[in-house]
Every structure is written in structure tokens, then in C-alpha cells.
């Protein structure tokens, strides 16, 4: 068997294009995915025109919010480009320099201040987007929503804090600045205390009864306004969620992305190589000669699976090394993810052997490998809750009989301690290797 494996590696070495692809493919994929993963946080560019008077302070209830603070809050989730007018902001969007423009009108400050008055007029900001790109519009909408959410949260917090100060003044008393004059506010607590002191001195009768009612009101008001503070805080964050996770801890997004990338590379390289190599034995007319007393069909099959396992693992190692430049890969867990790579490569090789033996021609084997691998692997990535129960069952079945999903699970389990269990997918891959190996052996009978 070793001579057959050595022969296949010699043939591989003699094909410069194939060899170059095997080396360049994982490097290229590693670069593309690595860049994509590290530049994922790049922000949407938004043109911002602030028409509010410079350094205008927006005070309400003793709380101060200035224009720059609102701008900073708006630009927390996006990359803001300053514009000097609404027209300039619009041009930036039209020219593609910005995906959207936000205009803060001149009266924004007045309107924000009015939120703390008896006649609130909510501020209205203008958002200008380019409607020609549906996908980009959706992304921009999400970014703008997030951006406004940040600004609204800031204002709501400041408004509630201002309202709480007013409530404290009514409750506990203090100084109030009204049109430049300091006014002393007694407060409900002190009012009740004063009234309780006076009450015994008032002769029984109608006046005393009225006084008792005033004391009762002051007491009730004091008790109830005490609850207003937490209530106002609750309004700014109406729903608070406590996240409880059950079941296995999911791997990080980075680990999952590395697993998917490596799984795809391993699948394509191994299945295509082995399927083509098996079919080549027939195209070179060597199969009959080999099996005429020199080696058995099973030995040829074992050599092909060995070839795919060696080459597939090597290619995946190059890919992981490339990805390791961009994202953290736990090299300390290498024994685990190497196991995943080897078993995954073996299962894909067995599948490739079955395809090559069934197709019997290199072109047909290659075409079948692409046509089967790609859709089945993509199907394995469809989340369970994204489809109905019947389709979910069908997808689970397809995922179970193809090595991609268990390879992905084994890889993520091997790459990250918090990933799925490693051993169950490995067992799954062993079973698939045996089953596909048996199918390939059957197909070789009529090769």
C-alpha cells in the first residue's frame, strides 16, 4: 500500500498546477477570511450636519446636555464625517462618500429642552439615505436605529434624572431657580411635620378636621413620591432581561468561522483529490493491471483514503496557520483539533473514493464532488429554528450522512474547550468512514 501512496504523492508532485492550488488555496482562504474576521467591526460612514448653535447647553432640571455630547453619542456606533450644511451632507450620500446623512436641525436644543416642560415637542432629526442599494439600505437602517437608540437613551436618562430632582425638591424641599430668582420650596415632608406640630394647638372642630386632611395628604404624597424615582428609572429601561443559557455552551463566533472555513477547505480538497485519483486509476488503465495479482481492491482503496487524509490534513494545517495570524488559535489544543482534522479528512476521503469509484471518470467524479459537497455542506449550516419541523428533519438526516457537520462539530470542539463535545463527532466520522469505505469497495467491483 505504501508504494501506491508514494506513487500518488509523486503524481501529485508532478502536477504543478494542482500542487500550487493545494498550497495557495488554503493561504488565500486564510487571508480572505482572516481579513474579513479582523475587519468585521468597521463602521458605517455617516455624514453629520449639526445646525444647533455651537456649545449650546441644554439644561433641564439641573441636568446639562450639550450638543457635542449628543454628537458623540450619535457617532458612537458609526463613523461620522462632519458636513457644513444639509446640501453638503446630501451630496456626500449621493457621491457614495457616506452611506447616510444625519441632520440635527437648529431647533433641536429648544425641542430637547421642551421635553422637560408642560408642552413637550420631541426633536426631529433628518436622515438621508441612498435608496439604490437594497442590501446596504438594510444595513444602514440597522446602524441608524442603533445610533438613535444610543442618543435617545442618553436623553431619556438625563430627563428622568431631571424629573427626579424636581420630585426630590417637592418631596424634601430646597432652592429653585426661577427666572433668575432663588425661591425656597418647603417640600411635602417638612409641610407634614409643621402641620403635625400645629394640629394639637387647633381647637376641635371644622378647622382641625381640615388640618387633619391636609396632614393625611402630605403623608400620602410623601410616601408615594418616594416610589416615583425608581419608576422614572424604569421608564428609561422598560424591560430588563436576565439571560439564562441552557445546554452546551456555544463556541465563539470566531471559532465557528474558523471551523466552517477549515471544514469547507478540507472537504473540497479531500473529496476532489480522492475522487479524481480513484477515477484516474481507471483512466490510466492501471486498475486492472494492479488488481491482476499485485494488490487487492481494498488495498487500493486504503491507499486512496490515506492519500486524502495526509494531503487534506496538511492543507488544513496550512489554512489554520494562516488564520492564526489574524485570529487566536489555541495551539495548546492542537492534539484535539488535529484529531478532528485527521478523522474529518478520512471521512471525506472515503466519501471521495465512493464518488470516484461510482463515477469512473475524472471529469464526472470532479463534477459530482462539487455538485454534492457544496449544497450539502451549506444545508448543514442552516439553523434548526429557521425551517419547519419536516425540513429540519430532512436537513438533520442529510447532515448526518455527510461528513461536513460532524467535521465542523469536531473542529469547533477541538479548537475551543467550550465548544461541542469532540468525541461524539469523532465517532460519527469513524462510522461514516467505514460506511463510505464499504460503498467505495462495492463500487470498485464494477470499476
Amino acid at each position, binding site marked *: 500500500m505504501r508504494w501506491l501512496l508514494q*506513487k500518488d504523492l*509523486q503524481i501529485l508532485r*508532478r502536477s504543478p498546477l494542482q500542487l500550487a492550488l493545494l498550497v495557495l488555496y488554503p493561504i488565500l482562504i486564510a487571508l480572505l477570511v482572516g481579513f474579513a474576521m479582523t475587519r468585521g467591526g468597521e463602521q458605517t460612514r455617516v455624514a453629520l450636519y449639526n445646525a444647533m448653535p455651537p456649545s449650546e447647553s441644554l439644561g433641564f432640571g439641573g441636568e446639562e446636555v450639550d450638543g457635542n455630547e449628543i454628537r458623540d453619542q450619535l457617532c458612537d456606533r458609526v463613523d461620522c464625517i462632519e458636513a457644513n450644511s444639509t446640501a453638503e451632507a446630501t451630496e456626500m450620500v449621493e457621491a457614495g462618500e457616506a452611506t447616510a446623512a444625519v441632520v440635527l436641525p437648529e431647533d433641536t436644543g429648544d425641542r430637547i429642552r421642551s421635553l422637560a416642560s408642560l408642552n413637550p415637542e420631541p426633536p426631529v432629526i433628518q436622515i438621508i439615505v441612498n435608496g439604490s442599494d437594497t442590501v446596504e439600505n438594510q444595513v444602514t437602517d440597522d446602524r441608524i436605529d442603533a445610533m438613535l437608540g444610543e442618543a435617545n437613551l442618553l436623553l431619556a436618562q438625563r430627563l428622568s434624572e431631571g424629573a427626579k430632582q424636581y420630585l426630590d425638591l417637592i418631596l424634601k424641599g430646597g432652592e429653585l431657580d426661577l427666572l433668575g430668582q432663588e425661591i425656597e420650596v418647603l417640600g411635602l415632608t417638612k409641610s407634614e411635620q409643621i402641620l403635625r406640630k400645629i394640629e394639637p394647638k387647633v381647637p376641635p372642630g371644622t378647622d382641625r378636621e381640615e388640618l387633619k386632611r391636609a396632614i393625611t395628604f402630605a403623608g400620602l404624597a410623601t410616601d408615594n413620591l418616594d416610589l416615583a424615582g425608581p419608576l422614572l428609572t424604569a421608564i428609561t429601561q422598560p424591560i430588563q432581561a436576565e439571560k439564562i443559557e441552557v445546554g452546551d455552551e456555544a463556541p465563539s463566533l470566531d471559532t465557528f468561522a474558523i471551523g466552517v472555513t477549515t471544514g469547507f477547505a478540507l472537504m473540497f480538497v479531500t473529496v476532489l483529490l480522492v475522487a479524481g485519483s480513484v477515477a484516474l486509476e481507471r483512466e*490510466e*488503465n492501471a486498475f486492472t493491471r494492479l488488481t491482476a*495479482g499485485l494488490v487487492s481492491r481494498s488495498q487500493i482503496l486504503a491507499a486512496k483514503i490515506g492519500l486524502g487524509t495526509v494531503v487534506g490534513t496538511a492543507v488544513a494545517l496550512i489554512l489554520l496557520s494562516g488564520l492564526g495570524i489574524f485570529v487566536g488559535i489555541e495551539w495548546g489544543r492542537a492534539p484535539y483539533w488535529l484529531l478532528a482534522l485527521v478523522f474529518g479528512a478520512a471521512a471525506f476521503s472515503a466519501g471521495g473514493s465512493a464518488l470516484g469509484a461510482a463515477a469512473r471518470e475524472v471529469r464526472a467524479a470532479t463534477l459530482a464532488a462539487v455538485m454534492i459537497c457544496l449544497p450539502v455542506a451549506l444545508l448543514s449550516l442552516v439553523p434548526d429554528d429557521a425551517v419547519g419541523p419536516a425540513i429540519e428533519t430532512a436537513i438533520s438526516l442529510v447532515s448526518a450522512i455527510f461528513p461536513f457537520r460532524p467535521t465542523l462539530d469536531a473542529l469547533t470542539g477541538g479548537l475551543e474547550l467550550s465548544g461541542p463535545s469532540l468525541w461524539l463527532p469523532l465517532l460519527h466520522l469513524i462510522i461514516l468512514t467505514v460506511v463510505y469505505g464499504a460503498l467505495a469497495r462495492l463500487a470498485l467491483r464494477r470499476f
Partner: protein
Amino acid sequence: MPPAGASFFRRRVQGNLLKVKSQEPALAAREVSKSFDGREALGGVDFEVGPGEVVALIGPNGAGKTTLLSILAGISKPDSGQVEGHGVAWVPQQAALYRRLTVRENLLLFARLQHDAGLTSEAPQTMVERMLGLTGLSARADDPVGTLSGGNQQRVNIAIGLMAGPSVLLLDEPSVGLDPAQRERLWSFVLGLVGDGTSVTFSTHDIGEAERYAERIVVLAEGERVFNGTADELRSEVEAGGATGDLESSFLAFLRERGH
């Protein structure tokens, strides 16, 4: 036709033909039948080749030549009948070689496999050098097989068949696609082996080639052996029908007379 069971062959010694009677055939098939998907490819065919004899298998397409050769080589099993013989090597019609590997690498691969399979005790490297000398391809040992001419590829193809030192060599249409010069070199090589005592059976559509190189001709038609004898005997079979001295015309007339 010669009497059944008798085996005559001519051994070429220093350019002369010498008639020798064989005691035991080197390879014999008795009542061999084979069907594919209900279609009979061979129906009870007898065949034998004596030591050092050269036999040509001729017949129309689909006559069963390749099927008989593959059964004689042990590559496929007959549905019924027996095959007796040892040390049989088979050389397929198309070169069964890896085109991206060099001549030496191809020879070394098969030498190692033959050695590991216990078919030869000769060291693989020694055998490669011997085969390179035998084929006359030492100068091109490190060239990829895909760059060789059809004739040279066929020489490597035959050399691999000879590695285990077979007593019988089965060649399936060995000269297909070769020009006359390549064909002559190939036959010079094969007849050299015959001179060393190797029996050769080859299939061909070239009647002239069969007459030139074979001592005995076996004609297959629709899975049956319809003639077994020398070229002259084949001619005499149809002389009454008005055939000329041309063996190809005699062969065609022979088939026509028997409804093939």
C-alpha cells in the same frame, strides 16, 4: 485444421523456423464460456499455446478476443470451463502506465508491487535496470511516460508484464496506433522474448501482422472458435471458394462462408 489436442509450434532460432512438438501446453483453456448481461461472449471455447509458441487471435469486433485473453490472464472468471497454466502475464491493449511518472518510476512501482506480492525475488532496483536494458529505454529512463511515443510506451507496458518472468505473455492488440517502424521495433522486442522460450498469444485486427509473426492462428467469431491452424491452412479452407493468396481475403471469405 490440425487434429484436436495436438500442438505444433515453430520456434525461431537464428532466423530459421524449426518445428518442435510440445509435450505439455504452457497455457490451456477447456470449454470456456462467459456471458455479460445475458449476452454470450464466449461459448465453450478451447484454446492452448505451447512453450515458446506464438499464437494470433483474430476475429471481427465483439468476437470475444479480449474476453478470452482476460480469462486466460485470470483477470476475469469464466462462467464455466477450466483454465490451466502458470506464469501468465497480461499486457492490456492501452498502456497501463502512469503518464506523469517517469519510465523508471513506473517500472520501480510495479517491480516493488511484484516483489511485495511474492511474484519475484529479484530486488526491485535490479529489475528496473534489467527492464530498462531489455526495452532499450535506458536513455529515457527519467522522462515522463506521457512524453514517450506510442511504441515506446508499449515497450514499457510489455516490460512491466515481463517482470515476474512469465512463461506465457498475453498481448491485447499490442500494435494498435503504432506506425510501421514502431511496430517493427515492437515485434523485434517481442520475438526476442520468444527466442528466450516465452510463449506469446496476441489479438489483432491486422491479418498481415498475424501471418507475419504468429505460428498459429485462432479465429473467433461470435464467441466461438471457428478456426485453429496455420495461415496456409486458413487459405486452403477457402481455396475452393475462389479466394486468392491474400490471407485477409481468405479470412473474409472464410467468415462469409460460415455466415459471420
